[in-house]
Each structure stands twice: as structure tokens, then as C-alpha cells.
């Protein structure tokens, strides 16, 4: 049994399991509600229940006063849902967020091609147009696999009659094995979309740095396509990190863009360049390439990070060392089903 939780003022709708707390559901969906103690004692995570029935859980009478209970307040860390619910939380509205509604789609696979030995491009064509923000992702249902899998959309939002996905075959992964080995052109796939808070904050008009690892290129591709298409005037720099030369894809595409647009720079980097490979570009981890390119100084930029957790962490450290902080760093971590809950974090950072 699940309930729909609508979060105002941002209008995000989440699916919440029975017994799952509001805070847990929000944090898992990448929505930060301020919190501290996580067990009903401190009242940092207070929210207002605007509609629906909730169980206030084990909220301390000192953290949630009687008059607040009467006013419909709840502590997100211990509050669970008993119906579909609308809450209002202390979340800042994001000028660049479009708050698009999530819908279910069914589409037909019209293209499967190999980008590299273990990455495929999968195009799903749609009968009705899809609305998403560049950088957002879908939850794809895969036949015979329990639960859904998240994939970022790689194409320009304007081209709304299809979506393009980049799928790496995860060792031992059931979902990606199906997509690589069984899925064929002409099959139908269903998914829901759009999800996520990973989109460009162009209203701030800052130069942008994109750091992508492997198939983490998908979101940045959509974002950069759109920025260039709209004539964004600030500098845009894309770093794409892969292991070896054979793992690079879209190289020609981005090189062509770099030639066409003066404000766009494309820098691929190989972490395991082999002797004898025909490569005169950047060698080393992708964040190291970014440090070299910017002489270690990132202040005044905005950074968008997309890829596996170790790459994101290394990039965050490099950016912060170069004086760029949480307010200007946005990231989308690629967790596979096997990564689980992640490690223990302090409340020092909210989003990164």
C-alpha cells in the first residue's frame, strides 16, 4: 500500500510506503527538509499538513506542542501517512524549477545502438509529447524485474516526441541485462516521468561547469543542448571522464558543438589511458582535468556533477578546494540497485 505525498510549495509528488516517514520519503527523493535529531525530539523538521490524514508518530510533546497539533503541524521525521496527503514544508522555491507533474507513459523502442562495448543508446518514441526539464530522469519499468530503474533523459526537452537513454550494462544487474540482451527495437516500454531536482539554474546567469562520469553524460547532454539552443551567453565547460579511449561516446558531437559555439568547451579525460592509445587529450581523473583547466579556482561558477558516487565526491572536494560551495554545486548521483542506502552523513551539507 502506498500513498501520494504532495509537497508544497514546490508541488513535487512522491510515492510513500505505508509506515515510511515523510522525512525519509523526501530525503530519498532528493528533497531536503531541514532536520536534526530524526526521532521526534527537536522539531527542526516541522511541516504543516494541509490535506489528508497522518499519524503524528512519536513526536515529543515539547517538540510538537498541543496547539501546533491542533493547527495541523507534524514532525516529518516521525510522521507517517494514512491517506494521500499534502504538506507545506520549509523548502525554498527554486526560480528555475518548473514543477512539472509526473505522468505515466508507454512508448515504443525505435532505436538501440552501441555507444561503446557496454553502453547502449535506447530511444523510446512516444505517441503523446512528454514534458520534462533538461537533466531530469524517468523511472522505467523493466519486464520481469521488480521495482523500477532510474535513467536520465539525454535529449533536448523541446524534442518531446521521444526520449533518449544511455544504459550501461551493470555487472550482475538484472535490469540493465534485460535492456542490453533481451530488449529489441519495436518493443513497448512503460515509465513514469519526470523526476529529480537536477536541472540548470540559468536564472543566476553564472558560467557553468559540467562534470560527467561514464553514462553520467546523459543529463549534461540534454542540459547543454538546451542552453546552447537558447543562446545562453555564459561560458559552458563540459568534462567527461571515462576509463579508456574505447569508453568515450559522443566525442564528435561535442567537438562539433565546441567548434560551433564560442562559449562552449569540451574536455574528455581518460583515467586509464593505455600506452599506445592514440590519445593526446587529458589523462587522469575527470576532476583533476577540471582543476588543471581552471587552475584550481572555481569561484563564481556553477557546477553540475553527474556520475558514480566516488566521482561526485572527488569533484565536490576539488570544487570546494577551489572555493566553490554547496550553494553553487548541483549533483545527481548514479546509484545502482546494489549501492543501497549509502554511508552515514552528518547534517553539515544539505544537498551535496
Amino acid at each position, binding site marked *: 500500500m502506498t500513498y501520494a505525498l504532495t509537497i508544497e510549495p514546490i508541488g513535487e509528488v512522491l510515492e510513500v510506503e505505508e509506515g515510511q516517514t515523510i522525512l525519509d520519503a523526501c530525503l530519498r527523493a532528493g528533497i531536503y527538509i531541514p532536520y536534526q535529531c530524526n526521532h521526534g525530539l527537536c522539531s527542526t523538521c516541522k511541516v504543516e499538513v494541509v490535506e489528508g490524514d497522518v499519524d503524528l508518530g512519536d513526536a515529543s510533546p515539547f517538540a510538537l*506542542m498541543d496547539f501546533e497539533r491542533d493547527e495541523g503541524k507534524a514532525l516529518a521525521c516521525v510522521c507517517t501517512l494514512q491517506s494521500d496527503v499534502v504538506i507545506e514544508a*520549509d523548502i525554498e522555491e527554486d526560480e528555475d524549477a518548473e514543477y512539472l507533474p509526473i505522468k505515466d507513459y508507454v512508448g515504443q523502442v525505435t532505436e538501440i545502438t552501441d555507444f561503446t562495448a557496454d553502453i547502449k543508446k535506447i530511444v523510446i518514441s512516444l505517441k503523446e509529447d512528454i514534458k520534462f526539464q533538461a537533466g531530469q530522469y524517468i523511472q522505467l519499468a523493466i519486464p520481469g524485474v521488480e521495482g523500477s530503474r532510474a535513467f536520465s533523459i539525454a535529449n533536448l526537452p523541446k524534442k518531446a516526441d521521444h526520449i533518449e537513454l544511455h544504459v550501461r550494462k551493470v555487472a550482475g544487474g538484472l535490469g540493465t541485462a534485460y535492456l542490453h540482451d533481451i530488449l529489441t527495437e519495436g518493443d513497448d516500454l512503460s515509465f513514469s516521468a519526470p523526476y529529480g531536482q537536477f536541472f540548470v539554474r540559468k536564472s543566476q546567469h553564472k558560467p557553468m561547469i559540467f562534470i560527467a562520469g561514464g553514462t553520467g553524460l546523459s543529463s549534461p547532454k540534454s542540459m547543454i543542448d538546451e542552453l546552447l539552443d537558447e543562446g545562453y551567453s555564459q561560458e559552458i565547460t563540459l568534462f567527461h571522464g571515462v576509463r579508456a579511449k574505447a569508453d568515450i561516446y559522443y566525442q564528435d558531437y561535442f567537438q562539433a558543438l565546441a567548434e560551433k559555439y564560442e562559449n562552449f568547451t569540451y574536455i574528455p579525460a581518460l583515467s586509464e589511458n593505455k600506452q599506445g592509445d592514440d590519445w593526446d587529450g587529458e589523462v587522469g581523473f575527470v576532476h583533476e582535468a577540471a582543476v588543471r583547466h581552471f587552475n584550481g579556482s572555481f569561484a563564481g561558477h556553477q557546477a553540475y556533477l553527474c556520475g558514480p558516487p566516488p566521482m561526485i565526491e572527488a569533484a565536490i572536494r576539488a570544487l570546494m578546494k577551489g572555493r566553490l560551495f554547496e550553494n553553487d554545486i548541483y549533483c545527481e548521483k548514479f546509484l545502482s540497485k546494489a549501492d543501497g542506502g549509502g554511508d552515514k552523513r552528518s547534517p553539515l551539507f544539505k544537498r551535496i
Partner: protein
Amino acid sequence: MSGKRKSKLGIKQRYSMLTRGLGWDTTYQDMDKVFPYDNYEGIIIHDWDGWEDPFRLTMDAYWKFQSEKEKKLYAVIDSFAQNNGHLGITDARYVNALKLFLTGVSPLEYQAARGFTHVGRQFRGVGPRVACQMQAIDELRHVQTQIHSMSHYNKYFDGLHSAPHMHDRVWYLSVPKSFFDDARTAGPFEFLTSISFAFEYVLTNLLFVPFMSGAAFNGDMATVTFGFSAQSDEARHMTLGLEVIKFMLEQDERNIPIVQRWMDKWFWRGTRMLALVAMMMDYMLPKRVMSWREAWDIYFTEAGGALFADLARYGIKPPKYADIATKEAEHISHQAWHIFYNYTHAAAFHTWVPEKDELDWLSEKYPNTFDKYYRPRLEYLDKEEKAGRRFYNDTLPMLCQVCQIPMGFTDMDDPTTISFEVSEYNGDKYHTCSLGCRDIFDYEPAKYVQAWLPVHQIYQGNCGGAEVPDVLKWYNFNLGADNLEYNGSPDQKLWDEWQAHRKKA
């Protein structure tokens, strides 16, 4: 849902209108003259508006919340008193933890109120100023409610009658007092690093939680309820601690080494003060919550580890000597209890040798150290006491120049050798108990040579007289009641009478 009015201000905007909107830049006087303290520590702030308000509570909302908290708390305190709640505690020995808390910790809340009032005036940024002013009022509320929560015990038990007086004079209470004196006499940013960050964030779970869970485990409803009431404020204090650190680290990279030095210093000062909590947890609670070692693992090694892993992104390293502090977790409670067992004739609470099942519990919780170093000593002291030779140490101990704890702690790799360090300043020698305290001394010797060291003061004749009883009278002790061994104390007699009555009934 429908009809959402977009015109309503968000929480952040509302808060900003009601706080920051009230500040202004002075014109008749230079801002540097109006706020002379917020840059002399070397902390460079480029943009005070870069301060993210850690909580958004306006004054009118604050009064409303706090008054309801008070109503609830005082209802519990009243019913506790009316129902003779003191009869429901596990054992009278428990009250000694309250004595330590009331004389050692509650006055710190008042010190915090003074400190936050001071720095709440000194920041030119409106954000931190408002946050500090609000915390100052919280702290005043905490000291008041703590005194009221525990005052019921003062009707029946000894040693609870003169907490503020004792805090200013008694030798072991100079440990927490000097901690806060050191913080309050530092600059405003160091004060926030020491109190809001090191004390309220990193170490609070090792100070506050043990006392409050100790109260819960030992049937002390009044103190537990105070704890809940305060904890809803503490969350604000913790977020202030994190925000000030982020603010300093993000404003200018030249702030990083200063912040690192303060973290090293205040971590060490904090762990030294926690020795008092460690012995409280392991020795003074008749019904134990967890061992000090376990608390350290959970709250410092794990939670602190996650924090410092995140801080590493700023280039901040874990506090210097954290490895030594973790080794100390195996020893410190036993060594501290032993010091107090030695000097309990000069303390306003009782000590005792734990009973056999309690010793067994310690053996189980400290398999690496207790049986080897500490149990035999306690069993010897127990035998001596039973034979009518209760040991009291009649010489005055040497104190660490920085933390002011008697120099009884050992080298952690060699637990039978006393640890001490020597520094020289202006031709005089100064002694510290550890590398951590020595570093603190060496960085600011001119500050620490001024320390009011209780033992020195006694020898200089500033503490009521030349004999120990003179000094204890100057402390306001009721001799023979507040001090000495628990066995045979008036507290114990009274408790045993109550228990006997209860059996009869």
C-alpha cells in the same frame, strides 16, 4: 488542492523581514569602531549576508513556544514534588549525579547566557547577532529550569544547596568553570566555535544525553522532563554551531587554519571536561545506561567521524589528538573516579566502591583494562574501608595549568605512569596533563599563566584558611554531610529509613 496563494511570503523571506531588515550600517561612527571585536581574531568575512540563518524563529513565535514548554515542564515538576518523586528513584547514590550536574553543568548554562549575550552584541552581521541573542535567552531558561527541576531534591539530600557559590570556588568545579571562562574571554568567533560547535554540536551527546538518559533510567522524571524541554532548543543551538563553521570556512580560505586550531583546542578541552561525565556514567548511576566507552564509540567515533568526513571537503582534519582521546575512553572514567575517591572529603558529593555486580558490569564493559588495572585497586580500597580505614588523600594535588584537572591521568599506552608535560614561559615552569593541554598552553601562554588554580590559591591563602576544614567552610560545605564516603552518610541513612518504612507498609 487549489487556491494556493502565491502572494504569501515564504518562511525565509518573512524571517528576513523581521530580523535582517531591522539592522543598519552606522554612519556617525565607523562600523569597525561599533563592532571592534569581530575582526581582531583574524577571521575574514567578505559578505555577512552569506550567513544562512540556521533557524527561522521570530521573537513572537519564540515566546509562544517557550511559554508552552514551561507550562508543561512545571506541571511535571509540581506533580513530581507533590507525589514525592524522590522516593521513586533507583537509589540515593543516583542523587550524586545530580549534585555534579547542578554544581558543574547548570552554572555553565548561565555562563553560556552571558557569553551569547556578549557576542550577540559583537557581530556586525545581523544574522549571527539575532541567533546569538536568541540562544542567550534559551540558556537563561535552561539554568532556571534546571535549578527548579532539581530543587526538590535539595529538600532531602545534601550538597545541593549552594551550586553557584560552589561553582566559583570548589577545586573540581574549576574544570568546567575555566572551560567557559576560556571561551568567554576569547573573541566572538572562537566563542561560537568552542560553545556552539565543539560543545553544543560535537560533544553535546556525550554530555547532555548521558545525564538525561541517566535520569530516565533511574526514575528521575523531573530531570528527564527538563531534558526533553531543553532538547527542543538544543537543535537550534546545534545548527548554529554548524552554520558558523561553514560560514567561516566559506568566506575566506585564510580562515581555515584558524578554525582548525580552534577545533583542535576545543575538542581537547571538551574531552577533558567530559572526564566528569565519564565517571558519572560508569560509577554514579545505580542503573546504567551504557558504558562511557560505548557512548564514545557511538557519539564521537561514529557521529563525529561522519561530521569530520564531511568537513574534510573544506580541508579540515579530524581534531588533533582524537586518537589519544579514543584510547582514553578505556581508562578515563576509572582514573577520574579514583581521583574523586581520593578527595571526596573535599567534594560536595559522595563516592564509593561499586558493589560486586557493578564491578562485574565494568569488567564486562572494559575487558581490556578494568580487571588488569582498576578492579584490584577498587577491591583493595573496599577492603580498607570495610576494615575502618577508608582512604582519603590529605595532600593537595598538582593541577593541569589548562584543564585544571588534578594530574592523575596516565600515559594511555602505559597506564601505570602519570602523564605530564612541562612548558616554560618568562622563566617559570608550567605543567600540563597532556600533549593536548600543553599545545593549548604553548599557543597562548600569556592567557593561561593567569589561570585561577584552586590548589595554588589555597596555598596562597586566598581560600578561607590554611587547613582543609577552613577551605571547605569557604566552599559553603556542610562538613560531614555534603562530603565523605557514601557509606555512613546522612543521605544513605535517610534513604535506608525510607526503604525500611516502605517494606513495613
